[in-house]
């Protein structure tokens, strides 16, 4: 059952990857990336159980923490970057 669940997770990752590759806007890709992060986290926990080494859960925790930080960082800088670029371009035009 564990390996079946792992397979399903891999499929989900593949679907999310397709969305990340297709995604028209940055936000679509970001959503897909965060789904991939969640799936990777679950996959890790499952791998730990398949190998019977539950120490891997630490890794899963790391993934979870960093996933959030990554998403919020991209959002934050997306706004900053747009503003910075606009003001810069205007300055160069003038």
């Amino acid at each position, binding site marked *: 059952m564990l390996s079946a669940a792992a397979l399903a997770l891999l499929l989900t990752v593949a679907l999310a990857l397709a969305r990340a590759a297709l995604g028209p806007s940055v936000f679509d890709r970001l959503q897909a990336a965060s789904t991939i992060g969640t799936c990777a986290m679950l996959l890790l926990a499952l791998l730990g159980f398949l190998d019977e080494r539950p120490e891997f859960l630490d890794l899963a925790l790391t993934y979870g923490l960093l996933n*959030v930080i990554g998403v919020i960082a991209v959002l934050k800088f997306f706004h900053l970057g747009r503003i910075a670029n606009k003001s810069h371009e205007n300055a160069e035009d003038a």
Partner: protein
Amino acid sequence: MLIDILSGIFLAGGAFFCLVGGIGLIRMPDFYTRMHAASVTETLGAGLMLVGMMLHAGLTLVTAKLILIGLLIFLASPASSHALAKSALMSGLKPLLGATPSDDEVPPSKP
């Protein structure tokens, strides 16, 4: 034995909801609706899988760590999807509304 079967059922359920979320991520027409699909994966899919693994592990520290992971998901994923939706709206990405979209429902998007 009973616990094995139960954990198998939970894992299968989790896998099913994850897959559904993935399919929804592909099928849905616009960004905001895709977020709903993704939230299926991140809440029920992940939650059921974690419960399945907890049953598999029994009452040990592994279970405690799994609970921590679950708490992390349930705290962090709504916050990040909230931030995602908010900044998508702020950047002017208009949501698709209704079967017959009516313009008065579109909120004024703030810069």
